[in-house]
């Protein structure tokens, strides 16, 4: 069980900012494939991973990072602070 959180247009396309997900995925890429089958909104939000960033337990990570022990996975667009 992992908490998945979404921000900005990913949150809007998916329709929620947070969901608890039962997953067997070993890495982020595997989780993304599972999430895309959840709804059209998920598939739309995650269709182009070139515009998606990921953080594992609040640390920026890559899509091939393992999910062992991770409690919160965040997906969001490239950041635009400042």
């Amino acid at each position, binding site marked *: 069980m992992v908490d998945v*959180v979404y*921000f*900005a*247009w990913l*949150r809007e396309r998916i329709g929620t900012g947070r969901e608890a997900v039962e997953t067997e995925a070993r890495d982020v890429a595997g989780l993304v494939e599972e999430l895309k089958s959840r709804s059209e909104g998920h598939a739309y939000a995650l269709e182009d991973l070139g515009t998606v960033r990921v*953080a594992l337990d*609040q640390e*920026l990570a890559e899509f091939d990072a393992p999910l062992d022990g991770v409690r*919160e996975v*965040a997906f*969001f*667009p*490239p*950041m*635009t*602070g*400042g």
Partner: protein
Amino acid sequence: MTPEAFEPGAVLTRFSAGLSGAGAVVSFSGVVRPDDGLTALEIEHYPAMTEAAIRKHADDAMARFKLLDVLVIHRHGRLYPGDTIMMVAAAAAHRRAAFDAADFLMDYLKSRAPFWKKEISATGEIWVVAKDEDEAALRRW
């Protein structure tokens, strides 16, 4: 991180008052511009990550530029043209370090701090797209 408005001059006054031995203080503040009919800016952030991420980079800047003190404030929520979005201040013995630290922290905030801006105008709402140049700027350091 704060949803509250702040005034950069007052912040600089407090920051400067706490310094001892500094020779150079640089401040940067970013302000909402009314470009292209913008009526408001909505800033979303990732609360669980923002504070720790900013603190880590502020600590990095302290060590890297041998700062005497550093400050980062970033608003979230709804802002309007003329509102101050964020501010950084850096104090060092010498000028170059203070300038470089403020510049470095801004590059970081632009492309690595978990904030997302949505521009709201009469014609609709649009998420600001990250600029490649912001990513490139970070590679200078």
